[in-house]
């Protein structure tokens, strides 16, 4: 019996939503870790019952939780994220040097093949890895040693490494994205890194097409076509055909090309989804209408998807890790809002239903397709 499990991280705890393959009725479990911020939870593709969760608090710091039974029980794991060597400085908001300080884990990316291997993207931006199921963490220091680190600067949410993509076709290739530094690629499992921001143009930095300094909000890839990446930048929706060597804009007819989320249909590598947000100073949908936009052409031409979504008086946001897709025959799409709604579409975006409406602000969603 197929089914879907949604791992939902919120400002005040985690929730696990489960359904069978029809995706009509959902069971809601939670809050887990009530009162804590859950920036991200994700399951291992190699063992779907192995889950990892980033639990944090401004008061009590960072915890990493692990479940070996699909979220029924959890164990607190090692939470020591120590930068390698002397961390040095990055830019502060005003351009002055500021020391690197660990604040939280934004994103956890389990290996596709080994449930004990997980990558963690953290604030202040760095990449960590565990190879023993989160019993210990080590930094992959080559990223911060790329040479551009002193020029990275925090976005509004902090200097965060929020996106990690593991290329399924090459065990050594991976991508990360940092606000506000840009996108980086490694071809040796994270040892050395290349900035891949050619084609990006950003206001708010002295040189609009500088090598680094771009506020990349999220990147998505279809595993069947790993050289094609889609990016939602601070402004602009971008696409690369060559693994990030060059990017071109595919914002097309979007009502605004500001936004946070971007994702790819599970079975159609050219079908992508974004949620346009009015602007960097108005973090809500244009005209109070919550619309997902779908492109079936890999960007450029977009159609609004509105059935079941509020089309008046809606002023929520959809944060960068708060959209996910399942891999059932009819692809399911899910997203969560800062208003606490989780919307689901079991028909690739044609129609939407709110699974829950009153959770704390949603920070992240990951869909697991259960066999």
């Amino acid at each position: 019996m197929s089914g879907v499990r949604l791992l939902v991280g919120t400002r005040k705890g985690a929730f696990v939503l489960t359904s069978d393959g029809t995706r009509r009725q959902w069971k809601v479990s939670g809050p887990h870790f009530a009162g804590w911020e859950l920036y991200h939870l994700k399951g291992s593709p190699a063992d779907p019952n192995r889950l990892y969760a980033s639990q944090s608090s401004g008061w009590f710091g960072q915890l990493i939780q692990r479940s070996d039974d699909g979220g029924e029980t959890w164990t607190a794991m090692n939470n020591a994220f120590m930068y390698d060597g002397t961390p040095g400085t990055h830019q502060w908001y005003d351009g002055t040097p500021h020391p690197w300080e660990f604040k939280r884990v934004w994103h956890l990316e389990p290996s596709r093949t080994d449930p004990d291997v997980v990558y963690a993207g953290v604030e202040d931006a760095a990449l960590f890895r565990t190879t023993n199921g989160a019993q210990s963490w080590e930094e992959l220091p080559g990223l911060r040693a790329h040479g551009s680190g002193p020029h990275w600067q925090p976005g509004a949410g902090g200097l965060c490494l929020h996106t990690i993509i593991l290329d399924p076709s090459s065990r050594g290739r991976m991508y990360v994205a940092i606000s506000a530094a840009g996108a980086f690629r490694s071809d040796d499992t994270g040892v050395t890194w290349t900035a891949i921001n050619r084609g990006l143009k950003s206001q708010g930095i002295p040189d609009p097409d500088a090598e680094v300094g771009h506020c990349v909000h999220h990147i998505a890839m279809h595993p069947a076509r790993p050289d094609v990446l889609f990016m939602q930048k601070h402004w602009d929706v971008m696409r690369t055909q060559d693994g990030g060597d060059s990017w071109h804009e595919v914002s097309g007819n979007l009502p605004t090309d500001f936004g946070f989320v971007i994702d790819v249909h599970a079975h159609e590598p050219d079908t992508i989804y974004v949620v346009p947000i009015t602007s960097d100073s108005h973090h809500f949908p244009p005209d109070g209408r919550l619309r997902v936009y779908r492109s079936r052409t890999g960007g450029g031409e977009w159609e609004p998807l509105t059935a079941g979504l509020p089309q008046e008086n809606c002023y929520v946001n959809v944060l960068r890790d708060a959209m996910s897709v399942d891999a059932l025959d009819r692809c399911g799409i899910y997203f969560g809002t800062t208003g606490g709604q989780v919307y689901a579409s079991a028909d690739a975006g044609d129609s939407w239903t709110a699974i829950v409406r009153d959770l704390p602000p949603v920070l992240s969603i990951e869909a697991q397709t259960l066999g």
Partner: protein
Amino acid sequence: MTVRIELPVHLRTLAGAGREIAVTVERDAEGSVSLAAVLDALESRYPVLRGTIRDHGTLRRRPFIRFFACEQDLSHASPDDPLPDAVARGDEPLLVIGAMAGG
């Protein structure tokens, strides 16, 4: 000596502990008990608390954590200073407080 510690509710939940925790701490050569020794004993008994009260590595108090005892704010004292004798004797608890902030 047995020192009593009260934790914020989130840390109690995390540790699976009740409102008050008692830990055994040896007096030092001067017959005193320091905050550092009490926190060492607490973290030794509840390893899950490592990093939640003091930062890993530096062992500095996290910015939104405060330490009160005997109606005194001990947050800014050296962690190696002696705690009040009433705390060392177990007559008064050491209060670990999450700073009043946010909503």
